[in-house]
């Protein structure tokens, strides 16, 4: 046997970076992940002298059936786990079975297995739901058929990617803090863990999003895209600090989601398009500036940025654009307040200077300890979405004023709330969104640190004193 590398032309590699892989590239990614599974299984077999049951079973079936098992996402997931733990705590997956769902529209068919039984499915990162009930199965089937029709008719390239890559959906428990949750593991190419979708639109968008993670994981298996062990920083899609590869995952997934919304009708799609195109472009530019990409990674991200950049010039209603910018800024200031802090020493120097009537000394924001993963939505986001749908943001609250664009009223209301409690994080992030002060808008964590240490000081005066 000969061992040869995979080869991609530069044009094919750039198309992959742009989220438009050709059939040949998709085939290469599938073969790469099958190669991975085979190598993991080889290692597992070599670790023991006696023939394990799974290997004897594999030898006893026809080659095509054996290849189906070795290429299956659940097999890759199990082999990774078995090698990592060196234990037989999770049994090897049975030959692919489960609930087979098939959706056909025009000439394109999606065949996917709803996997609700294999114990190894718990390794996908989310809590698996129990066995699918008959009514649950009908819900999945209906949603998938309608989602597939929508994808094939409006988003044909995305549908072709899904038909080539998606093999398994693992139903998971709904996270109470999220409207819908899904995940993709690097250890299970072509598998998606997903809570029961509220409808076909959410399922279509969710699958488009998740399959990008599989594509990127397979690409990273072939080519190192990011240097190892780099620093963590801001990601527009997560509340916790992320390494460069995590930011790239988000950018690549949301590139496809942005393209999806670009071709969808209605004000909510326009809002999501306006919101995500900026996030993706900003993240790609940050990655290219950051110095953590390899040569291949730089090529990949340049292609990604070239794809999204023209979308930034496409017309969007001014009010939709304002709300999209507000949602993006809201995430950024909340991220800063959640994850950044000022050291005690810097805070003490700032407090001393304020009380002495001196100019503020320099203070750097640093990562706060223990700022782990979370799923937290801004309290303003539902109000923004309501406005996008044409529902009025009535009410006298600070958040209502903020999303209406009445910055003056919002500043007054947030400052009133902080006058009662300077620990009110939602008021801090709201004030950072609407304040005319550059310090509050750009570095709210610094203003917050000093304001808490000097409770007698008026927040507006502190913000004006601090540099932006």
């Amino acid at each position, binding site marked *: 046997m000969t061992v040869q590398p995979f080869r991609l032309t530069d044009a094919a590699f750039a198309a992959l970076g742009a989220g438009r892989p050709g059939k040949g590239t998709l085939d290469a990614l599938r073969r790469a992940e099958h190669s991975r599974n085979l*190598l993991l299984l080889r290692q597992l077999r070599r670790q023991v002298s006696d023939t394990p049951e799974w290997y004897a079973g594999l030898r006893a079936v026809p080659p095509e059936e054996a290849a189906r098992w070795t290429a299956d996402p659940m097999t890759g997931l199990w082999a990774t786990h078995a090698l*990592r733990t060196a234990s037989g705590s999770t049994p090897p997956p049975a030959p692919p079975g489960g609930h087979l769902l098939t959706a056909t529209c025009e000439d394109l068919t999606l065949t996917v297995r709803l996997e609700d039984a294999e114990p190894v499915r718990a390794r996908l990162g989310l809590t698996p739901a129990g066995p699918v009930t008959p009514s649950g199965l009908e819900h999945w089937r209906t949603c998938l058929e309608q989602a597939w029709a929508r994808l094939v008719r409006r988003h044909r390239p995305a549908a072709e990617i899904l038909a080539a890559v998606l093999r398994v959906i693992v139903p998971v428990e709904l996270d109470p803090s999220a*409207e819908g949750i899904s995940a993709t593991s690097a250890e299970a190419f072509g598998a998606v863990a997903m809570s029961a979708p509220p409808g076909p639109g959410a399922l279509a968008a969710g699958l488009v999003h998740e399959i990008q993670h599989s594509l990127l994981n397979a690409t990273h298996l072939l080519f190192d895209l990011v240097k190892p062990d780099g620093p963590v920083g801001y990601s527009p899609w997560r509340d916790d600090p992320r390494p460069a590869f995590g930011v790239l995952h988000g950018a690549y997934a949301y590139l496809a989601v942005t393209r999806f919304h670009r071709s969808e009708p209605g004000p909510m799609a326009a809002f999501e398009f306006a919101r995500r195109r900026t996030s993706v472009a900003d993240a790609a530019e940050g990655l290219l500036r950051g110095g953590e990409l390899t040569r291949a990674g730089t090529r990949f991200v340049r292609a990604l940025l070239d794809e999204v950049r023209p979308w930034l010039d496409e017309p969007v209603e001014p009010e939709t654009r304002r709300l999209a910018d507000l949602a993006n800024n809201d995430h950024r200031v909340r991220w800063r307040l959640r994850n950044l802090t000022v050291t005690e020493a810097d805070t003490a120097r700032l407090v001393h200077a304020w009380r002495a009537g001196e100019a503020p000394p320099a203070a750097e924001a640093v990562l706060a300890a223990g700022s782990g993963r979370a799923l937290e939505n801004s309290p303003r986001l539902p109000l923004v979405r309501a406005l996008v749908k044409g529902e009025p943001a009535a009410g006298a609250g600070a958040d209502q004023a903020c999303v209406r664009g009445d910055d003056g009223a919002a500043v007054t209301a947030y400052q009133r709330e902080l006058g009662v409690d300077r620990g009110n994080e939602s008021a801090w992030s709201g004030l950072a969104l609407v304040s005319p002060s550059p310090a509050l808008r750009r570095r709210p964590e610094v203003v917050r640190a000093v304001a808490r240490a000097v409770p007698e000081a008026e927040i507006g005066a502190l913000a004006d004193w601090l540099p932006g």
Partner: protein
Amino acid sequence: MHAGTDGDEPEEWRSVMPDVSASTLAELLEHDDSALARAVRRVTDDSAHREPIAGFNSAL
């Protein structure tokens, strides 16, 4: 890692991971060389350093 020209980008990108997908597991078990050993290290090391990616809130 990459077959290239002297220009900005190579004409072709070659993977660090080999294609063994056409082989059977039995064939791979009989085969031993440095390229395969490197590939095994890549997939096993890789497994130790990745994490599931989660957290998409569908907003439709």
